[in-house]
């Protein structure tokens, strides 16, 4: 897929978010006892969609800006930094979760500890599966 096509796809998604957000806001007026969750979430979605439209639409008409954006997104050093940050985040997050599970267990909050431990377990399993798949591919 060319970068221009990727940007068009993002614009399409942004329009989708904006429309969905607007629909949620409109729907919230017709739901009795709506506790502002639908309208708030709809507003966030609509604003996010509009901001992304504003961000991406100019790229479709300005070749130079599109080229610079492509370079910024595919620059190998930037990609390396993002991947390393993600990897470190996973390590730090998992470690913090394990410490939190231990603390919650000691405090007697077993149900919350068990839920958090299960989440960490699923995360680890997903990581191992993806590692296996990528090892075979590369």
């Amino acid at each position, binding site marked *: 897929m060319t970068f221009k096509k990727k940007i068009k796809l993002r614009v399409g998604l942004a329009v989708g978010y904006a429309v969905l957000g607007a629909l949620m806001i409109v729907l919230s007026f017709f739901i009795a006892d709506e506790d502002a969750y639908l309208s708030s979430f709809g507003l966030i979605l609509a604003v996010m969609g509009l901001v992304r439209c504003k961000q991406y639409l100019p790229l479709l008409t300005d070749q130079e800006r599109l080229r610079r954006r492509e*370079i910024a997104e*595919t*620059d*190998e050093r*930037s990609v390396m930094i993002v991947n390393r940050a993600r990897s470190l985040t996973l390590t730090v997050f998992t470690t913090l979760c394990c410490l939190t599970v231990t603390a919650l267990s000691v405090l007697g909050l077993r149900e919350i500890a068990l839920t958090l431990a299960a989440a960490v377990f699923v995360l680890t399993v997903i990581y191992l599966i993806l590692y296996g798949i990528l090892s075979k591919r590369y």
Partner: protein
Amino acid sequence: MDNRIRALRKEAGVTQDELAGAVGVTRQTILSLENGKYNASLQLAFRIARYFDKPIEEVFLYREEDI
């Protein structure tokens, strides 16, 4: 890994931004390469060497201690 990118760039009278645009990376990447903070991939190393019309060994200085 050491490199002669800064010296070659100045010889050619080219800015970091111009070099970055020519080889398809950001100016920050060229800066990091010149300061020795980042090692280029093989693809990028070839593109830079080709830009300066030099063999890759004349642009990037590989030493045994880099292993």
